């Protein structure tokens, strides 16, 4: 089942076409990898889906509901959550407050007041942040801040989770931990789209990969197909 779909999505900044005529779809339950050189429009595509930017033309729909033109908070409540490339955490708020906020505002249905703390701890436990509840977010390490972003997104109870470079800047151990987390998220029933430059992670966990270059889709397929694709090797992977 196609859970998220985009048809002829376009966005330009001034004269530059950041994303042009991109068609994409997301199958329920898969992990889709989005790769491409810097400036190829990956994050712009995320911004268009999450409502941070408005499409110039084209349409994004989630479970047959048109998302185009909705504000970010509505898209979040509809069930599409995201993280950010440069971490956007609430530095002066504690870890658990991030999750509480998401539980109280982000979900489609209200979480009962007496359950909220227990649920919040559950989410933190799931991403491996148990025990850090009362630490200010700005005092966490980068790897934990990225986990916190994931926790905050997950606490909105999404059906689709968009991860924008959650593994950038992590050491090899942290990368494999993050890979396990992404798999665990998928296994819990959330469909995942991830932008990533860490090839080991992309090739290891994605079911399908889409490659962008200059705002256009140049290839799409399984990790094996992408690894052999001449076009992709030329513009991105290298010999």
């Amino acid at each position: 089942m196609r859970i998220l779909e985009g048809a002829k999505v376009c966005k330009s900044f001034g004269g530059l076409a950041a994303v042009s005529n991109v068609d994409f779809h997301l199958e329920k339950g898969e992990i889709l990898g989005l790769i491409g050189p810097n400036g190829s429009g990956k994050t712009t595509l995320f911004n268009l889906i999450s409502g941070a930017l408005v499409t110039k033309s084209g349409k994004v729909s989630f479970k047959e509901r048109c998302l185009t033109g909705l504000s970010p908070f509505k898209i979040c409540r509809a069930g599409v959550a995201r993280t950010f490339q440069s971490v956007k955490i609430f530095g002066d708020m504690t870890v658990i407050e991030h999750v509480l906020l998401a539980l109280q505002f982000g979900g489609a249905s209200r979480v009962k007041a007496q359950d909220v703390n227990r649920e919040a701890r559950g989410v933190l436990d799931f991403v491996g942040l148990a025990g850090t509840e009362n630490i200010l977010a700005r005092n966490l390490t980068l790897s934990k801040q990225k986990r916190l972003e994931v926790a905050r997104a997950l606490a909105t109870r999404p059906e689709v989770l968009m991860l924008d470079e959650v593994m950038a800047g992590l050491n090899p151990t942290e990368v494999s931990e993050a890979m396990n987390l992404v798999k665990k998220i998928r296994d819990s029933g959330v469909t995942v789209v991830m932008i990533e430059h860490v090839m080991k992670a992309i090739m290891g966990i994605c079911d399908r990969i889409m490659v962008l270059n200059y705002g256009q889709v140049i290839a799409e397929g399984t990790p094996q197909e992408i690894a052999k694709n001449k076009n992709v090797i030329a513009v991105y992977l290298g010999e």
Partner: protein
Amino acid sequence: MNMTGILSKLIHSKWLVAGIALIILIVLALVPAFGNLAFKIMLITILMYLIMTVAWAMFSGPTGYISLAPAAFLGIGMYTAAVFGKDLPFSVLIIVAALFTFLAALIVGAVTLRLKGIYFTIFTFGLVFLIQQLLTWVEIKFTHTRGRFVVVVDNDMIYYHMLAILVITLLTAVFINRSKWGRALRSIGQDEDAASHTGVNVTMVKVLTFGLTSMFIGAAGAAIATRLTYIDPGSAFNINYSFFPVIMAIFGGMRNLYGPILGAVIFAYLEETLITQFPYYYMLIFGTVMVVVIMFLPDGLIGLWQKWRRGGRQKKHANT
């Protein structure tokens, strides 16, 4: 356990805080019965500054949107009192002024809260002059008046109403602080994009809170206007009233609710005393105090208190 340890334990017990608040409230409620007139009048002014500062800090503290509109809302409250003062009982008058201010702030908020940072501040600053000039123009062109007389109300009445407005303002501040609404406000101040991607309707939260907090300022304006007996656009929409709450909140510290309260009380008392004792030098002394506070106490008086409480202990958090 040393002395500071016990003190900090005490300060963190909410029953103690509630108890102290209740005692202060009872003492304040008894003032009209015992205090002399000058003292009462000074307290009315201090109460007004307290309301303005707490109301201002309720919105601008957590969100970081520095509003310079308090003078506009105070003025709207004053003019409401001047226009309807003869027809309405005092309590109703204050409620009407609060509602007018609420509406005005909603409109202003809906238009300006899309502006970020300094642009919002500049707009709210301009708003004060806009209303002031507009009102002057209306008075010259249509009503052919210059200012208005305000109905005279007994000082004790004003005092009790001011006190009631303050209590409601404080209760609202405590309530917002502890509710999920307060958490949403803080998240907006920390990172607005992230907040909206977490499901917070940032525009609504901002505009409604801006409207709600401005309401208290309007109510205080209506109450204080009756003490002034005569107002005109220049005195009602005096830009100083926009700066005072900001300065008082910074003076006390904006990290928590105690800061603005402490700041407003000390600052207002200082102002009232200096202006009577040293009418020529008061601005000079005042300015010096402010500069010293901003340079050496970035977290205000409360920050100083917290630093002292922590004692010589290592800085708790790295500056990341």
